[in-house]
């Protein structure tokens, strides 16, 4: 048999494969969302699943997110394990009630009488002129709500593993993909899968801990390459904001004494503030300089490519921040 150069799956293919395998293994798993069925999803994430599992398990819905998610909550209470897609993370705002007030709370309010095993799949990813209403990173809002898990895979390996874990979990999970990662293949597809709630040390270092998640992991890696030997930075991919692996983070900061938090979300009142506070609470007396957050400017994300780039954390800015934190 001829040697065939096998390529590792792209991020998008890894998600598709996880959905497919979970649906094959458990017929309670159903997909629903706008254009997820015959259309295969606006970005093609669910391509082929309609053909494979049919219209009863891959359901197209009207553009009515609150209704879609309400249906998902009901289905979950009735015993299914829905994976509901919210096409853009920005659209969360029109359907927060089923997530925040229903899915996140029903198990608690029924004394464990019902569980709500939903995966709310959504995607973010500014930087392609998608406009202010299609470019937000709102994971902080979700992570703030007790009863929700928040996963933010940064590569195909994690997208695959975390999605499978999310589907199997009885707790509602917000699964945040990044459309700019969809085409990326993981360099480390062969690495051992990690569970949710366990951060991954992407690169070891001694001088500065850089903590991030999602697409900013890639961006930060490039920034660290740019910084080179100037600063020995440790890069931590949190992978999941809830549950949060505080231990890995603190242990790293205790060693380096310095920390930079990078995220695509707006810095002001962003998830970095929570991380900074957690570090300060646990490791103040290990700090050698101020902890710094580096995220998007407090502005609606501009449509203009130049302005959008200026508003977002990018490679050069992260590299600069790493240098400053190392010396600060």
């Amino acid at each position, binding site marked *: 048999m001829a040697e065939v150069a096998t390529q590792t799956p792209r991020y998008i293919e890894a998600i598709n494969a996880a959905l497919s395998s979970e649906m094959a293994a458990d017929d309670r798993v159903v997909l629903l969302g706008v254009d997820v069925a015959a259309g295969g999803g606006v970005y093609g994430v669910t391509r082929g699943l309609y053909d494979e599992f049919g219209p009863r398990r891959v359901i197209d819905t009207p553009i009515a997110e609150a209704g879609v998610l309400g249906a998902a909550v009901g289905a979950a209470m009735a015993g299914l394990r829905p994976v509901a897609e919210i096409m853009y993370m920005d659209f969360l705002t029109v359907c927060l009630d089923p997530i925040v007030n229903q899915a996140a709370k029903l198990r608690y309010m029924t004394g464990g009488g019902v569980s709500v095993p939903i995966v709310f799949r959504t995607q973010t990813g500014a930087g392609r002129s998608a406009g202010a209403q299609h470019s937000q990173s709102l994971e902080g809002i979700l992570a703030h709500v007790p009863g929700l898990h928040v996963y933010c895979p940064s590569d195909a390996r994690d997208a695959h593993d975390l999605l499978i874990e999310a589907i199997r979990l009885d707790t509602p999970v917000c699964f945040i993909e990044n459309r700019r990662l969809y085409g990326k293949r993981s360099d480390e597809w062969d690495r051992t899968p990690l569970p949710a709630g366990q951060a991954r040390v992407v690169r070891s270092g001694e001088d500065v801990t850089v903590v991030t998640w999602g697409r900013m992991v890639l961006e930060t890696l490039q920034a660290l390459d740019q910084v080179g030997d100037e600063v020995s930075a440790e890069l931590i991919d949190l992978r999941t904001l809830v549950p949060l692996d505080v231990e890995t983070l603190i242990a790293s900061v205790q060693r380096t*004494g310095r920390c930079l938090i990078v995220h695509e979300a707006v810095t002001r009142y962003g998830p970095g503030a929570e991380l900074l506070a957690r570090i300060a609470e646990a490791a*103040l*007396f*290990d*700090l*050698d*300089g101020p902890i710094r957050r580096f995220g998007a400017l407090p502005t609606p994300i501009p449509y203009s490519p130049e302005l959008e780039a200026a508003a977002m954390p990018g490679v050069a800015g992260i590299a600069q921040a790493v240098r400053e934190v190392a*010396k*600060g």
Partner: protein
Amino acid sequence: MNAPAQITMPRLSDSMEEGTLLRWIKRDGDAVTVGEELAEIESDKATVIYEAQAAGVLSTAIEEGATVAVGTVIGWLGNALLARQLHSVPGRAAGRRKASPVARRIAATHGIDLELIDGTGPDGRVVRADVELRLSAPEPAPVLGVRGEVTVHPLTRLQTLVAERMSRSRDEVPDFELRVRVDAEPLSSVREQLKAGHAVDVPSVNDFVVKAAARALREQPSANATYRGDAWERYARVNVGVAVAVEGGLIVPTVFDADGKSLGEISRETRELAARAREGRITPQDLDGATFTVSNLGMFGIDGFSAVISPGQAAILAVGAAAVVPVVRDGAVVPGRQFELALSCDHRVIYGADAARLLSRIRDLLEHPMTLLVA
């Protein structure tokens, strides 16, 4: 609002180049009025209480123990807020050493004084690397040789000064020494009479020695002088320094114009100076200007000793303890009381015969103490 008044390191003596702020008597933020005691400052000659020259809220610029050049701003008196704005000393925030939390913790764990560490972080902040560098520096390890454990005691400014001056004297001054024994009986007798007459502050033996030396120097001014390389400097005033042992050192306050002062005056002044010296309240003016020194170890029962000449003077007189000794009087050996005087002289100024005349005259005066009482 008035701008805050600067407090600068004062020049406390002619030779003072820098001073050490030993202690802030007032604290940062204290309201101070003119004339209130502000700080204790050590110069090359003395420890002085420095008083506020202006009123206002004190804002300190240097820490206790810091040594700075004369004229350096050591604090401000005035409006606190303005003072703080002026008060931008690198590495220091609101009077506290700037240090990162981890640097602070490591320093505390190892008992390292952050003040002793140079901060390399932004604005002079002490960071972990600075503390670790200090930790990795070879510790002056306690040497456990044949002399047992060695501890190191850095010299105070006073001790440094004494060491420096004594070394200079031994290096430069070709000294010789003359000794005489003085009959102590007449002196004892006079002192007994004064005591019997309930005189206050009966002059001590040392006071008589100071007076006698001053009188002799007045009569023989060539010894009231200093060698200056190509000339002798002779001084119009006879100012006698009286060596006083203080904790951790030796200081020599001056009895000015001792030749013209009565024994009572010399006695009172010497007691006052010695007390101030021991309490650390001596001023540089008290220590300046001696032309001759008397050093007395008689109170320790020392028979006699040779003293080291102070640079800038030509001689020093060492006084031993009065002791009962056999003396020959009228052809018979009888008990008598004597004490020893040793005069160390700078041969560049005083020659042997002059020195002999001077010391003999001092003995003569002490053995006829009434002459010291009448003038």
